[in-house]
């Protein structure tokens, strides 16, 4: 017998001398069952350890001077591209009229012909044949009393129909179809416009705006700002030869602020994705609004919540925002993290004539009168930012601890069960032998 130390008495793992041990059938069964249970639980622990969960956090958005991208894809089946203007305005005073950079306007066939695409041209470019230049190089077209546009081809002149329109817009005059304007008649502006009258238009693309309260709208006619006033030249929209006129029936295929979050995110959120939350779904996608009234105004009140997404293994290094990033790449970094925005939206529609909302069953609701027909998005930025961080459900140590707990617990319980069975059987035997 080896020399016993003081700690021998502390031995938690006492061994029964082999001679004193009994092996029983019931004990064997309990062992096998408990082994199966242990394996099952260990597998569960492993699965839990491997599981990636999304851990949402709410913080105050500490970014400064950030910009965000609006990605939109909206179809207007009853307004031609020539008449549509996209304007962005925000509280910082920045205004983008007739946004063309990054946004494409796709001409669509009339609805009666199926509404397919006609051709697409980036609005930033003007086809060469459109710019009907005058033959005489010294020609200086009149601007008909309007201030010549500063970006005219020839300073102080309006050589093309576009320049005349621009000049009119800058002077806040309505332009109409250009009857009596020599440049436009030469370019057949009115005829070309009338040809397009039956067409629809799809606006797609992205634009970059300041991350402040603002609004963007798609409304007919060239827009211009005069002091505090923002005016659209609606003459061509209202004076239309087509029956029924134009209307702002529209389908929003897509509207998001910033890059799209990974598709599998929703899956990973698992049970945390609750039925009334739009985790990474854009609520306005594939919504359709229809009207026959040309003077109809749609408003969308959008509340934007900045959202970050950090994948597993994200280092947390502060990535400087790259303002030079091309449209579409904004907010996505190489390490897989995504800076984007979610939004909640309330829609509202009214006729420009005012009146009550009896059609919707709210007679007490009086709409305001006037305004511009069109689709307006007014957005507001939430000060709170949601951070979705991918994490392992458990650390490795946690996994080991869980494993030990599962194994130990099961074995102890199994031992107790076995002990109970053994004692019970022994008693039973004893009683039976007594009866004998």
């Amino acid at each position: 017998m080896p020399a016993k130390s003081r700690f021998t008495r502390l031995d938690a793992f006492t061994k029964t001398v082999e001679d004193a041990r009994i092996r029983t059938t019931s004990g064997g069964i309990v062992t096998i069952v408990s082994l199966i249970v242990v394996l099952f639980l260990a597998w569960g622990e492993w699965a839990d350890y491997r599981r990636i969960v999304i851990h949402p956090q709410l913080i105050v958005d500490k970014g400064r001077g950030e910009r965000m991208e609006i990605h939109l894809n909206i179809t207007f089946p009853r307004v031609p591209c020539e008449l549509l203007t996209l304007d962005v305005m925000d509280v910082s005073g920045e205004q983008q009229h007739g946004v063309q950079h990054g946004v494409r306007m796709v001409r669509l066939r009339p609805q009666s012909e199926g509404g397919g695409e006609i051709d697409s041209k980036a609005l930033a470019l003007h086809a060469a044949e459109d710019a009907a230049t005058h033959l005489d190089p010294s020609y200086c077209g009149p601007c008909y009393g309007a201030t010549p546009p500063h970006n005219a081809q020839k300073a102080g002149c309006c050589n093309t129909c576009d320049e005349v329109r621009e000049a009119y817009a800058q002077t806040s005059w309505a332009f109409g179809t250009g009857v009596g304007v020599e440049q436009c008649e030469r370019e057949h502006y009115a005829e070309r416009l009338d040809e397009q009258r039956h067409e629809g238009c799809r606006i797609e693309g992205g634009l970059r705006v300041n991350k402040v309260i603002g609004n963007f709208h798609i409304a007919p006619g060239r827009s211009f700002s005069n002091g505090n006033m923002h005016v659209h030249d609606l003459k061509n929209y209202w004076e239309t030869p087509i029956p029924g006129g134009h209307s702002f029936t529209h389908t929003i295929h897509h509207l998001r602020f910033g890059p799209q979050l990974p598709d599998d995110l929703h899956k990973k959120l698992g049970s945390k994705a609750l039925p009334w939350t739009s985790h990474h779904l854009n609520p306005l996608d594939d919504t359709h609004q229809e009207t026959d009234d040309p003077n109809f105004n749609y408003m969308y009140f959008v509340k934007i919540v900045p959202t970050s997404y950090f994948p597993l293994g994200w280092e947390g290094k502060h990535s400087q925002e790259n303002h030079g990033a091309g449209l579409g790449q904004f907010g996505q970094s190489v390490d897989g993290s995504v800076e984007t925005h979610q939004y909640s939206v309330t829609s509202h529609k009214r006729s420009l004539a005012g009146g009550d909302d009896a059609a919707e069953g709210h007679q007490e609701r009086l709409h305001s009168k006037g305004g511009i027909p069109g689709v307006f998005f007014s957005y507001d930025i939430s000060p709170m930012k949601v951070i979705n961080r991918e994490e392992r459900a458990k650390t490795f140590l946690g996994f080991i601890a869980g494993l030990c707990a599962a194994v130990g617990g099961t074995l102890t319980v199994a031992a107790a069960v076995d002990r109970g069975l053994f004692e019970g059987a022994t008693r039973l035997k004893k009683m039976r032998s007594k009866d004998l």
Partner: protein
Amino acid sequence: MMNGYEEKHGHLDDDAFGPKSGGIVSAFDAFPKAKPQYVERTSGGGKWTVAMIIISLLLFWSELSRWWRGTETHTFAVEKGVSHSMDINLDIVVKMKCADLHINVQDAAGDRILAGTKLTRDPTNWAQWVDAKEMHKLGRDAQGRVITGEGYTTIGEEGFGEEHIHDIVALGRKKARWGKTPRLWGKEADSCRIFGSLSLNKVQGDFHITARGHGYMEFGEHLDHNAFNFSHIISELSFGPFLPSLVNPLDRTVNAAPNHFHKFQYFMSVVPTAYSVGDPGKMGSASIFTNQYAVTEQSQEINDRIIPGIFFKYDIEPILLNIVESRDSFFVFLIKVINVLSGALVAGHWGFRLSDWVSEVMGRRRRSGQSQGMLGGHSSHGGSNGKGYTD
């Protein structure tokens, strides 16, 4: 002594029940069971067993109660879908005649909602709503609750955020109705009770109660300035579905106007809130969707160029609060209980051995003290160990 008898039978048992030479299953038995003749029961061990049973029961009970209570998780999300409208439920008594009041909503969408046509206005007497001293507290019943005549019971005063979620959900399912205005019984109708639910556009807005002829010039003739008294009692003011059992910050408050030209402004931030019991979407879960709000009140005396009245300016927060009370599945609970109990069992076993060892050491100390430093103390170690067992 019974031992001898038992030992004999123990041998008999071995033949019938013990290791059979060909038992494959029994070969797996990993739990060493000493033959009964080698097992010894001590009174110390018995005490430990009883103690451990009590501790295990306590642990089991605490685990059970914790499981039964469930856990409350607060999450947040951005609201889904395109919303259009939101209800406001209010029950306000204003110390002016009904005919002199105009109730309107103006919101960021540019709509004006003629709330007066949708809400019920009942003439009533101010004294029926406040106690004799016109205290800032309403008449309360024995439990300190306000008697507002509403046909519902109120839960605790803390506001519904602190209550148990299942209580809130259960209360939210009750059918709600507006209380009746108390009969006048010949008293003068000097006040107006305005109550009901009204659908608003779910955008920032301003709900206001103003005097006839002031503010909106198109309706009603000018009202005498001496008739102005915008003292008011708010019995209920909530957004979303009408759930009177949920207490909102402005419920049951009194605000008295010291003079005729007084403007009360309430700035409220509405936070959509969903309460659920059980994970939503699963079987047996119940949830209610409502709105909470934070409010700041501001009231001031004004000159007669500013419109007096009661103004509720509300804005809707984009982030939705989600409060879920959930309970682990029974299986998970079972595993937890087994873990805890087996842990206690092992710890008890250890504790017993430790105490045994300590008493052993102490016993030897005492003995060696008596024998005045006998050198054989160490050599008798093994022997005394043996003795410890035979106690």
